[in-house]
């Protein structure tokens, strides 16, 4: 009988003896300075939480990229969902992290709620459907943020809403696609990085192929990896190996969760409900074909057109350097606002709001 994956099996991915071994090998084999960027906010937190950051050799510089969904939500999108919240007869359904993201005038959903706007925190897009059933007299607007991991869950929910004829369920689709953002990042001459650690759970959906250009066109070693200390250490060893051989590649280290062709069923549902569109990213600006808009017969679920709200290309908040942090141009603790006017209790920008934001991670673990 095949052995089971048990909590014990999963715990072994944190095994201190194995970690020490991999760390020793990294130290012994590191050919010189190495700046790597992890794209995913969950990796950022995992690297801090496991203490890896302090254990790695000093020559390894660790940058955090644009992979926290709340952090990359553009100023204009924040303004738009605050406007939606103020519409008559609207209930906003949102993941909790968006509650405290400040809008252009410093207001947030939390403040809007205190002023009487109806806002409900949901754990899943599907929970928003239950709200739509419970409040047939109101329009439920689900705030759809997230990357390729989350977008299929929202697409599946919209399909169910259509099947069930839930006319009062609407979505503000702010989903973003990771590969076009990485392309934009690598085209920026001010961004200097030697390797990428690719987001594990985005990859469960898109697989390996969409990342090939990173190695082939940009010569950047790129590893799809899991979130345990051993996964991250192995990814670093794979990067070191590629630097030594001079052959950059995209490698799937996280094969226990990521099939090389990803999850075709999830992509099919996504492609049925959404169409690829341009998107505004905080810090990165407008990136062609990096977003998802509602497609065809699903356009009637679009909150913006139904409620007459537009997303404007607004400037960053005064003094906020989240854009530079998201591009790895600035370490969070070098931002003039960091831990002064901007703290987790009083966030100025989204990188300090979200638990996956690199500023929040620095504040919590590196101060």
């Amino acid at each position: 009988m095949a052995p089971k994956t048990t909590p014990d099996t999963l715990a072994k991915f944190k095994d201190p003896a194995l970690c020490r071994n991999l760390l020793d090998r990294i130290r012994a084999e590191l050919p010189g300075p190495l700046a790597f960027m992890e794209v995913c906010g969950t990796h950022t937190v995992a690297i801090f939480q496991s203490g890896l950051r302090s254990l790695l050799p000093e020559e390894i510089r660790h940058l955090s990229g644009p992979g926290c969904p709340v952090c990359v939500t553009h100023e204009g999108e924040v303004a738009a969902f605050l406007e939606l919240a103020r519409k008559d007869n609207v209930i906003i359904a949102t993941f909790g992290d968006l509650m405290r993201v400040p809008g252009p005038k410093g207001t947030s959903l939390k403040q809007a709620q205190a002023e009487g706007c109806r806002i409900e925190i949901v754990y899943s897009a599907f929970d928003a459907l239950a709200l739509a059933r419970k409040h047939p007299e109101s329009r439920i607007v689900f705030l759809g943020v997230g990357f390729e991991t989350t977008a299929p869950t929202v697409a599946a929910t919209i399909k169910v809403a259509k099947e069930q004829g839930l006319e009062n369920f609407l979505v503000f689709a702010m989903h973003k696609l990771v590969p076009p953002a990485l392309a934009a990042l690598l085209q920026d001459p001010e961004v200097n990085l030697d390797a990428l650690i690719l987001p594990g759970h985005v990859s469960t959906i898109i697989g390996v192929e969409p990342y090939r250009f990173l190695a082939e066109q940009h010569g950047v070693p790129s590893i799809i990896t899991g979130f345990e200390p051993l996964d991250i250490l192995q990814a670093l060893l794979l990067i070191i190996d590629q630097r030594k051989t001079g052959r950059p590649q995209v490698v799937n280290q996280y094969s226990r969760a990521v099939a090389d062709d990803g999850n075709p069923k999830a992509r099919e549902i996504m492609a049925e409900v959404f169409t690829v569109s341009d998107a505004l990213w905080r810090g990165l600006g407008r990136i062609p074909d990096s977003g998802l808009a509602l497609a065809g017969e699903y356009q009637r679920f679009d909150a913006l057109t139904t409620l007459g709200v537009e997303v404007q290309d607004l400037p960053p908040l005064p003094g906020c350097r989240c854009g530079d942090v998201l591009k790895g141009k600035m370490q969070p603790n070098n931002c003039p606002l960091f831990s002064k006017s901007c703290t987790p209790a009083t966030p100025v920008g989204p990188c300090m709001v979200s638990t996956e934001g690199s500023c929040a991670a620095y504040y919590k673990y590196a101060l």
Partner: protein
Amino acid sequence: MCLAVPMEVKSINTELNVADVEIAGVKRQVRLDIIDYPASVGDYVIVHAGFALRRLDREDALETLKLFQEGLNLQFN
């Protein structure tokens, strides 16, 4: 919010297209709309935002661990 965690499948309701999952005493009900490979009771699935994304491959997890372990043995021998 982008966090995804492996949870064990405790029961499956094909009619409602949901599964009851659990990890370390935390229980959830998750949708099965987007999982590509059907999971069975006892499997681990990656759960994100109320949906099961994918079944975790046991053999692959153990194989990865074996590779780590071999690296360790090589060093100690």
